[in-house]
């Protein structure tokens, strides 16, 4: 090796540190344990892990409910007073573990189990502990969503271009590709250009990441399954989507590279422009619902497919379409992906980025795609409710099985995540189908088409809601909403029908090479 002279200073060869050894040992052990199962039933395992992790992320809600019912309410019923401690000012404190034990035993828990659980359940009385647990779960989901979406996007792109996409890592359709990519990105050298503004260059990815993570904080995944139930949740999430652009601009500027600056400038003007039609389109369902709280809006739409706000009046229906277009631009997806158009600006604002900082930008982008989709599903397509009216479940009782079945059939976080991913899929589909448009066309579409359109929609909705006060118009309105719901049903079934036709005729449509000859496809 020594005969090569390199222009940079050679680095000292550091081998594994202690932490690295621990990580390697754990990873190898996990791999050894799960290898036989994963290699035999890879697809099954992948789906099971995905659904289980979605459920586990929200398992805390069930436990917190249990603590509320068995400990706090029971203690309040039996008039057990809380201990008061002196901590600056006198404050009430949680019930001691010795107080908790008889309560647990009273709720039907075995005495041995209760004495174990009293220590585990004791911290869950405090808001701060609950908050930290939910935050951990939320950030786990925040990491999971982009990792899954990136793999999915590569598969979708492959299928659209008659390829197979990643196939190797993990066995079943390359499901572990994102994990491998993430590991690769973390291991790569953290390059910072010499002429860059170094602190800003380093901090910019986090400026994009933190708002994207904060948007998850206010998303309602279900009734009561929301970290912070803000009464201004919608404005807050929109603000977070808007703030994300600061990270992109700062990153592009700090790179000290003209492609990066061009990308950043385009991003800034596109983002500032499209925020307005996007917000206006979102105001249409707000006017219909009469509240800014996402929970109330979601609960309003629990009456099945025809009660969803997109079908409540023709203006909302058009607003839904214009929101989808504007949201594409605001998360810089094709055909509006000018900030990173690789045919003209090398890679746009992240030209100079590599390694895990580049990965952080991607994490933020895919998380924003999910948030945008989640907003669309809450405001237009029923949020966490399924297309079946939840009143059908009224007579099912309050048992465990009934509750689980209700959560799966009529509404719950799984529906919410599925709908949001449906929008993510739509964004991918459009990206790999449509050509990129020019920057002047982007701004023309915003200022001269979408902006006046959404303003008219807003005024129209306001008039419609005002006219609803007369009973004759209310009848007319419900007829219109049924018609719109039927149109939506036709679209949905048409979409499913085309997908099914494509699936059963794939051999004819994409050729035998992809379906038969490539292994695993």
């Amino acid at each position, binding site marked *: 090796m020594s005969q090569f002279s390199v222009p940079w200073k050679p680095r000292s060869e550091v081998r594994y540190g202690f932490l690295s050894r621990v990580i*390697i040992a754990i990873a190898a052990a996990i791999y050894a344990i799960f290898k036989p199962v994963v290699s035999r039933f890879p697809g099954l395992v992948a789906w099971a892990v995905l659904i289980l992790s979605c459920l586990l992320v929200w398992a805390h809600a069930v436990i917190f409910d249990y603590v509320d019912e068995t400990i*706090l309410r029971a203690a309040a019923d039996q008039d057990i007073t809380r201990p008061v401690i002196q901590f600056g000012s006198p404050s009430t404190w949680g019930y001691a573990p010795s107080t908790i034990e008889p309560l647990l035993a009273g709720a039907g828990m075995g005495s041995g189990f209760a004495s174990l659980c009293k220590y585990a359940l004791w911290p869950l009385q405090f808001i701060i502990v609950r908050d930290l647990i939910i*935050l951990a779960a939320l950030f786990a989901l925040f990491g999971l969503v982009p990792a899954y979406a990136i793999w999915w996007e590569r598969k979708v792109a492959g299928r659209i271009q008659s390829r197979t996409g990643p196939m190797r890592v993990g066995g079943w359709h390359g499901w572990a590709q994102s994990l491998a990519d993430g590991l690769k990105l*973390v291991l790569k050298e953290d390059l910072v250009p010499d002429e860059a503004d170094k602190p800003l260059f380093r901090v910019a990815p986090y400026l994009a990441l933190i708002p994207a993570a904060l948007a998850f904080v206010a998303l309602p995944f279900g009734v009561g399954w929301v970290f912070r139930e803000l009464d201004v949740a919608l404005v807050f999430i929109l603000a977070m989507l808007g703030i994300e652009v600061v990270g992109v601009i700062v990153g592009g500027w700090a790179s000290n590279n003209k492609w990066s600056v061009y990308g950043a400038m385009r991003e800034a003007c596109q983002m500032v422009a499209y925020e307005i039609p996007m917000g206006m389109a979102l105001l249409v369902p707000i006017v219909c619902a009469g509240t800014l709280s996402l929970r109330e809006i979601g609960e309003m739409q629990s009456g099945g497919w025809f009660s969803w706000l997109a079908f409540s009046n023709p203006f909302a229906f058009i607003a839904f379409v214009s929101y989808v277009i504007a949201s594409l631009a605001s998360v810089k997806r094709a055909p509006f992906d000018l900030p990173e158009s690789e045919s003209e600006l090398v890679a746009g604002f992240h030209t100079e980025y590599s390694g895990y900082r580049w990965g952080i930008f991607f994490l933020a982008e895919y998380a924003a795609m999910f948030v945008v989709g989640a907003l669309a599903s809450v405001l237009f397509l029923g949020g966490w409710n399924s297309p079946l009216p939840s009143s059908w479940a009224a007579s099912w009782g309050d048992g465990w099985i009934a509750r689980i079945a209700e959560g799966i059939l009529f509404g719950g976080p799984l529906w919410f995540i599925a709908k949001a991913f449906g929008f993510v899929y739509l964004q991918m589909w459009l990206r790999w189908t449509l050509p990129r448009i020019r920057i002047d066309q982007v701004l023309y579409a915003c200022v001269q088409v979408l902006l006046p359109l959404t303003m008219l929609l807003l005024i129209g909705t306001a008039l419609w809601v005002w006219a609803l006060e007369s009973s004759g118009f209310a009848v007319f309105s419900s007829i219109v909403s049924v018609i719109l719901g039927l149109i939506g049903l036709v679209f949905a079934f048409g979409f499913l029908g085309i997908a099914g036709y494509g699936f059963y005729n794939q051999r004819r449509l994409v050729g035998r090479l992809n379906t038969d000859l490539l292994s695993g496809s």
Partner: protein
Amino acid sequence: MVLRLHKLTIPSLVAVAGLLLTAAPALALSAGGEASPTEATKVAAPGSLFDAIMFYVVALVTVVSALGVCISKNVVRMAVWLFCTLGCVGLLYFLLAATFVGAIQFIVYVGGTLVLLIFGVMLTSKSPWARYETHPVELSAALVVCVGLFSTLCLVFSSMRWPVVQWETEGTAVRDIGVALLTRYLVPFEAAAVLLFIVMVGAAHLARQEKK
């Protein structure tokens, strides 16, 4: 090939620190008396200790980043410090249970005004390192004036006796603000609308390209 896993250590520590940084504003979001989802969690809060800790954290970051605006020489860095200050002021509004004002601060101030400022910086600088030096005498005079102002204000505040008002538990409803804007404050509201329209036309006129 040697798999250099030791490189994982620093990035993962940084990532953990970043997540903690994210957690702090997320926690601050509702500490100011946001209605808790259940009765039980509301009574389980250990006094207002949590509020106090969140206030001190957010206030510290606000002041430190405001000082960062003062110290930094480069305009883009000033704007990034200002971003931090504005965000923390928004969190202060949330701590004061003014959720609507906080959200508006985020969407208009941080998402709009600040982006406009950075845009202005990019349009008006020849190189990223363009600096504008100030005379040391001016700097020290300004420092004396500002420190004097701050200490005088603090003295005044410490000598004031404000009436003690009980901390309400629930925040203000958005509906109340909407009703107030369209009844008591209708005239200023409309005036602000007209002003914004004039500003839009004026800014477009000022910044237009001259036709040669």
